[in-house]
């Protein structure tokens, strides 16, 4: 399938970040950190006329305030795009506001507890090793396209009870919805329809062939009135799990490997002190948080003293919050054993990522298995690291060489 990016509308380059920011600008994609610092120095909340009007909170405090304020800020649109179609693609609970949010979320939470993830960990460990087997003899690989890309998609397929080999199709849909969909409704709608058709088939099949996977669990779930979920709700939740569960974790693992490839001291420390992994995973999640969410302003209010008006979207950048020096000492440094780390990589408030325990487990296992078999690796000077655009940030190409440098 060809990449539609080439014919999508191009935004004019940004010359004034503070008054005209654009999270799809190539410089933001390449290296957003100095841009966030500049915005944060200017104001706790900045605004752009792009995307039909959009604010961005730049401090941890302002991000938390918005995440916790469901009265003035709605989740009905969770991606900042060029257009705001009236028809809303529902994917409960991420697109739900109170009071619908809580019952929708409670349906999804039990399959994603830390204990449930422990049971899935051996399969993920095996997936990681199957992938490493494919390229370790080459002495090098593109760690993003050969390794990190495939781990979350196979893990979620395993949970849902659908073929792991369908992963490439899922990845294509997600690219079309989350990246290309920012600028093209046509690409987004087509991908969403293909995805719905795919899942509708799996739902129908289970009506006559019940199984014990996550799709069946959702089909058997009851809503707050004790009624079974309708197919549309099941479909929306499946859409969410796939969209939210794949390129997010792909990005988190990829950014962690990118950091370790270019930071020998941290890599050697993690190899020598594997017990450090839980704290290191949290710190890498803080420093390279992949996910930026959105809200829509519903009622006029102020955030950190800045007026915020309806008709605008909000780019809710948890990654920028996690780089706020007022919240984190040495915010721009990776400190593997950081002791105080209230990072917001999985969001704050009622929309805390349902899959956070899954993501942590996958990231931990993926780094552990990689470091066991490839303790020494570095960026390939002959290759180029590229990053995804928009809502989820992580390396899409990460060429690395194995072994110590000559």
């Amino acid at each position: 399938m060809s990449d539609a990016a080439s014919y999508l509308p191009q935004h004019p380059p940004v010359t004034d970040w503070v008054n005209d920011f654009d999270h799809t600008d190539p410089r933001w994609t390449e290296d957003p950190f100095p841009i966030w610092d500049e915005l944060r120095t200017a104001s706790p909340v900045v605004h752009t006329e792009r995307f039909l009007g959009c604010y961005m909170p730049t401090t941890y405090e302002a991000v938390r305030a918005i995440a916790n304020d469901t009265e003035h800020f709605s989740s009905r649109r969770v991606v900042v795009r060029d257009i705001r179609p009236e028809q809303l693609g529902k994917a409960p609970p991420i697109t739900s506001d109170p009071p619908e949010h809580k019952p929708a979320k409670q349906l999804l939470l039990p399959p994603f507890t830390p204990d449930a993830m422990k049971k899935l960990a051996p399969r993920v460990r095996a997936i990681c090793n199957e992938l490493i087997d494919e390229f370790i003899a080459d002495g090098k690989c593109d760690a993003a396209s050969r390794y990190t890309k495939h781990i979350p998609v196979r893990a979620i397929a395993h949970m849902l009870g659908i073929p792991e080999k369908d992963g490439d199709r899922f990845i294509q849909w997600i690219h079309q919805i989350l990246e290309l969909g920012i600028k093209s409704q046509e690409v987004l709608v087509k991908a969403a329809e293909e995805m719905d058709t795919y899942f509708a088939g799996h739902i129908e099949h289970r009506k006559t062939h019940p199984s014990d996977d996550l799709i069946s669990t959702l089909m058997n779930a009851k809503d707050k009135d004790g009624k079974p979920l309708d197919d549309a709700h099941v479909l929306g939740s499946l859409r969410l799990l796939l969209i939210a569960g794949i390129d997010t974790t792909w990005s988190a693992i990829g950014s962690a490997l990118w950091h370790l490839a270019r930071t020998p001291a941290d890599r050697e420390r993690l190899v020598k002190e594997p017990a450090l992994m839980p704290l290191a995973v949290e710190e890498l999640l803080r420093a390279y948080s992949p996910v930026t969410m959105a809200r829509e302003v519903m009622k006029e209010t102020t955030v950190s003293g800045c007026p915020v008006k309806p008709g605008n979207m909000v780019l809710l950048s948890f990654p920028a919050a996690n780089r706020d020096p007022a919240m984190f000492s040495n915010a721009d440094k990776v400190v593997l054993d950081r002791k105080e780390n209230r990072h917001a990589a999985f969001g704050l408030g009622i929309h805390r990522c349902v899959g956070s325990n899954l993501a942590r487990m996958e990231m931990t296992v993926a780094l552990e298995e990689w470091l066991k078999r490839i303790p020494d690796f570095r960026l390939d000077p002959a290759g180029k690291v590229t990053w995804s655009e928009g809502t989820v940030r992580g390396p899409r190409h990460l060429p690395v060489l194995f072994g110590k440098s000559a």
Partner: protein
Amino acid sequence: MAKLKIRVDQDKCQGHARCKSLAPELFELDKYGNAHEIGDGTVPAGLEDKAWLAQTNCPEIAIEVTEE
């Protein structure tokens, strides 16, 4: 060292589960993954550092540590 007591504010906890990961002796999770202090929240001697670690890593600032 003063005796510590912990409490998870159920209105604030969103189930990040950082406390359970950092101090499994002090916190347990319900079926939704939300955290509760174990027993009456009294921190056994020797686990004080873990109580503070959990408190300072909760993204929702949902954990109270009090000295008795």
